């Protein structure tokens, strides 16, 4: 099977089993199933885990458990933790470049640019951790003797249907803004290009991101998206990677528990989106999509 080859041509290489990442561990799917991943030319790359509904429920449980302590970290600490992900990705830059080139069928040079952008994305969003409250919060001059203020807080458990075409940069661009405010994520990686995402999970596992804050599944969207959208312990869904024809069904299901929905901008096809456009992808609005605003009336008096 052709594959991502990191050794020289004369060596019998040691190939990797790509797994899921749930609660800080790397289990195979409880279903025992995998699916074959090919590159855009149709060449075989590897077998990826094919997550089941049970895997998804396990991932939501792990995310729920991780959410509160992650949100309770200081903003500066969360910023440093995300920055650390960039540091570790930098160290694995060549591996990611090779894997993205293989997954997306692009040149190594192009893949290198995509990886660089992905690393820089973590840096950009990491810096927001201790600023978003100052930009999106407010002190409100109410006409009564109260100190009234509004602070943003993380929504909770966010389901991310990752972009389908952009295996790494698209995923990172959507994941970092979810995490920076203190949300925990359940990620469905690109179905057709899942391998760089599975490797990103290895980076997350060895970074300081606590186990369960990011849970990453690979598999068939048809199996998983309906379960994610319907799960009552998921607070919000990022539907970027949902096919246009499925969007309404996802929203109908998500509305059962009044989930927050983030969508692709109108008129933008997943495959046509330019993830290297920093202005389009580095947006505080992408953080705000997974925030709740809490308003406090604190009495003023002796």
């Amino acid at each position, binding site marked *: 099977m052709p594959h991502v080859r990191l050794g020289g041509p004369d060596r019998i290489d040691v190939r990797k089993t790509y797994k899921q990442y749930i609660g800080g561990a790397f289990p195979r799917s409880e279903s025992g199933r995998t699916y074959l991943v090919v590159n855009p030319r149709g060449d075989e790359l590897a077998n990826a885990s094919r997550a089941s509904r049970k895997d998804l429920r396990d991932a939501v449980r792990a995310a729920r458990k991780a959410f509160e302590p992650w949100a309770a970290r200081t903003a500066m600490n969360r910023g440093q933790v995300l920055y650390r992900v960039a540091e570790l990705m930098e160290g694995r830059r060549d591996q990611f470049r090779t894997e993205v080139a293989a997954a997306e069928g692009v040149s190594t040079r192009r893949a290198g640019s995509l990886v660089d952008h992905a690393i820089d994305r973590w840096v950009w969003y990491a810096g927001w951790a201790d600023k978003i409250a100052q930009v999106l919060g*407010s002190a409100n001059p109410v006409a009564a003797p109260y100190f009234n203020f509004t602070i943003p807080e993380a929504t909770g458990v966010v389901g991310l249907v990752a972009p389908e075409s952009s295996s790494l940069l698209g995923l990172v661009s959507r994941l970092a803004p979810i995490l920076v405010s203190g949300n925990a994520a359940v990620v469905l990686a690109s179905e057709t290009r899942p391998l760089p995402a599975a490797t990103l999970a290895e980076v997350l596992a060895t970074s300081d991101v606590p186990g369960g804050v990011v849970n990453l599944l690979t598999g068939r969207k048809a199996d998983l998206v309906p379960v994610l959208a319907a799960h009552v312990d998921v607070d919000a869904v990022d539907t970027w990677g949902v096919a246009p024809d499925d969007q309404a069904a996802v929203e109908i299901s998500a509305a059962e528990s009044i989930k927050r929905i983030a969508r692709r901008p109108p008129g933008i096809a997943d495959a046509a989106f330019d993830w290297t456009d920093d202005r389009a992808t580095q947006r505080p609005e992408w953080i705000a999509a997974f925030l709740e605003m809490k308003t406090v009336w604190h009495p003023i008096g002796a």
Partner: protein
Amino acid sequence: MASMATDTKPSAPVVTTGGAPNSWGLGDGQAIPWEYAPAPESREIVTIRERYGLVIGGKEVASSDGLTFSTINPATEEPLAEIARATAADVDAAVRAARQAQSKVWGKLPGRDRAKYLFRIARLLQERSREFAVLESMDSGKPIKESRDVDVPLAAAHFWYYAGWADKLEYAFPGRVAKPLGVAAQVIPWNFPLLMLAWKIAPALAAGNTVVLKPASTTPLSALLFAELCRQADLPPGVVNIITGPGEIGMALVTHPDVDKVAFTGSTAVGRKIAQGIAGQGKALTLELGGKAANIVFDDAPLDQAVEGIVNGIYFNQGEVCCAGSRLLVQESIAELLIAKLKDRLSTIRVGDPLDKNTDVGAINSRAQLEKITELVAAGVAEGADLYQPACELPDRGYFCRPSLFTNVAQSHRIAREEIFGPVLATLTFRTPEEAVEKANNTPYGLSAGIWTDKGSRILMMVRRMRAGVVWANTFNKFDPTSPFGGYKESGYGREGGLHGLQAYVLLEDR
């Protein structure tokens, strides 16, 4: 009373009623009987017409099929007026009028001019405040002292606040250009008809949108009087369109393909249907839905002040408030004392004619709502909680409900889980702050919470732990146009009020 200490039901339910009405509860049998003379607000200031049409494109029109429905005074069960029942064709005409006004007139006006119109509306509301207050109390059943002192002044204040934003949008959102979304479809509830109208219309218009608003079918009159006020302000035709009718007309409105923005305040069940009805259409949506707020009283709270706050939290507007403090969480050590004080206070609550200036609790908005409340109170008794109601006399006619206080409530009881939307308080106890947090957050809702303690640091610790959009400390049910309001979880999304409320009505483009 010792059984208060636990959530489990130790014995048969107890239903008690208080002593003589209007007693001061001085103890030693020293109760002083006290009768208030009637103090009715004159209804002369309001002229209610026999019929009202829809307001579309600045004109009042009958519904396209000529059908009407009546709105009644819930305190007397007498019909007040016949109201046009909009059809799908009327909805379409209203949306077209709004689109036309947005693209041709309102969207092109400089912010400065939009501001002036909104200031005019604020001033007109102040000028005609008494008229609005009386009309609101007649149509909704809420006490005149609340419509006069809360609903109408706050509605005017909302227009005042957002008027000032209309020509300052460029300062509101750093790095972005704020553009109007277009046509907003707004569906509002019957508990604060005029105030909810203001929350919806003021930010929408400030940002350059036009609106089609549907008031609740039991309380359309203040919205229709507001349309008259828009005419008086010379607001361009079509900027504010009012359509009236049942829920399915609201659904026809929000699902109309030419609507850009949907804003809904009401029950979680209907909010869910609306979100599903517009699924996949890409419309902007804000939902302000139900709640089951915890009002948490710690042992160091100023108890008399807390009692007033608890009463205001759940009996304000007959408890028909989405953010009502319907679950009282009391620290165990003070539960007995607090409940005694609360029962004492309840005996002084005056239930009756909404237009009487001394009335504390008016009429329930509709027969259907009264039946729902009655059913849930019965469920509370049937499930084993102890019910206390003061022995106040209720009027012979109209939809009235005694203020109800449940003790010995378990978290599993329906009265502790379901939004009752009535003057019914469910009391639970806790020992530690940790337990209070757990119980307060143990609900799919997350709209509001109250915290009563003398300790500022504890207030802020609890604030941090509450999964709720509005947290009141040593107060409850306070509102202000500058203060964002809205929920977590199944209480909805988006905020109304403040800069955050403005954001719900703008499209942000890169500079």
